[in-house]
């Protein structure tokens, strides 16, 4: 139950922007071995049933690696949709749709947070106007009560609870969260604090990626 035993570092992150040339913006983002590809199209044409007169409609399509579509995929899509809606300035593009397509390439834990991060990086690459950037972080609590930041798939399987927090870049407050598993309030707070400091590192990584994109070498 010692807090010193926490694994409190993020796995190395890597990102390539613009890999999918047909899309308006794209990213291939990996955190450790977890890899996610994301392509953003928009603002573009919208289906009449989803058309909104005062803002753009955000549509998320998620595909898992094995292609079988299930309820868990719908849950991820909804989570991503709500998170992206909060960050995108949708009112600038009424009667349009911004489509975010996510493809899971490899899941080694922390998939949901990788999806959120890659979606926002793709939105940056597509030059969609954003209110803020977000950094999503996953924490796991194991049976002994130790906290693990950015857990691998093995650690997530053994965990008694997994917590995903999404922080925004201006005031580092929480935009969305999703936690599963029994955790007492003290541990919840500790995970939140640990995730917050890791989010700052993720946002720094975004800067590095964007610097690379606009540097004279590329």
């Amino acid at each position: 139950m010692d807090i010193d035993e926490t694994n409190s570092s993020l796995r190395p992150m890597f990102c390539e922007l613009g890999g999918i040339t047909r899309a308006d913006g794209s990213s291939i983002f990996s955190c450790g071995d977890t890899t996610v590809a994301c392509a953003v199209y928009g603002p573009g044409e919208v289906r009449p049933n989803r058309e909104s007169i005062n803002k753009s409609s955000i549509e998320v399509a998620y595909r898992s690696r094995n292609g079988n579509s299930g309820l868990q995929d719908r849950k991820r899509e909804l989570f991503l949709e709500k998170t992206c809606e909060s960050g995108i300035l949708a009112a600038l593009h009424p009667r349009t749709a911004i489509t975010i397509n996510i493809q899971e390439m490899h899941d080694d834990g922390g998939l949901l947070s990788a999806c959120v991060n890659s979606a926002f990086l793709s939105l940056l690459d597509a030059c969609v106007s954003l209110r803020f950037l977000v950094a999503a972080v996953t924490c796991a609590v194991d049976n002994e009560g130790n906290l693990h930041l950015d857990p691998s798939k093995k650690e997530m399987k053994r965990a008694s609870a997994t917590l995903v927090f999404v922080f925004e870049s201006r005031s580092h407050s929480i935009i969305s969260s999703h936690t599963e598993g029994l955790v007492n309030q003290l541990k919840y707070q500790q995970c939140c604090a640990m995730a917050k400091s890791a989010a700052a590192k993720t946002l720094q990584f975004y800067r590095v990626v964007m610097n690379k994109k606009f540097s004279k070498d590329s």
Partner: protein
Amino acid sequence: LIHFYKRKMSLEFRSLQPDQYLRKHIEAGVRPDGRSLNERRPLTLSSANISTADGSAVVKQGNTTVVCGIKLELAKPAAENPDQGFVVPNVSLPPMCSPNFKPGPPSVQAQALSTFIRDCLDASQCLDLGSLCPVPHKYAWVLYIDLMCLDHDGNLRDALIAALMTALRSLKLPKVLYDEEMDTVQVVEEWSKLDVKRIVLSNTLAVYSLGGTANLVVDPTAEEEDRADSLLTFVTTEKEEVCLSQETGSSCLSEETIQSAISLSTKQAKQILTAVLKAQS
């Protein structure tokens, strides 16, 4: 006469500018139906109503009405868990509950709620699946849990979880006699109650960002839910542990706000718990 004109004006305001109407109420610390921000709607629970189902419950939370029915079936257990029974939850939002739903395949909201129920059951570990397998590798109990909303007036999550817990507590399992030589099972009408290891209860709050501060509103109606900036749901146990939490929407919440939301949720959950325990006499 003044009262008559005041009411007419307020109805016009409500239909022409619903957002402003709602926000002015919340700034003043009340809601259109007269409740304070922390007040829940009256909750009515009844259990074992459906005689053809093995476990059932009906929950009415204000106008929101949810029915839960559980049917038991014997089936071959899954290969990865040969000594465990399994659960198949399904939430349906039929067209009768709200004008937003049309006939056809399950809507996104229904699918999201089905996932929510499944996640709650997994995360809470409220059922001992090992006790639901009378003959490992051959026969296991399958619990088909059907939750149906009859009237959608907001805050389905709390009603669904309350109905689920009440129905699980009303569930009676028959005895299974297994003849090893003939490899047959016989179901005998000797009933035992399902062992529900813990009761978890959900509390949903709508968040309105007014003037920079986040106002938390407990148990939103459909009108309040549609106009909220975001929705927070906390599923908590009797021991005040958080079993599942979800925040969706577009408000920025500080950690202090989340902490106060969790404390509020655990307090409210105690109220719902007394109702759930009373329903099962």
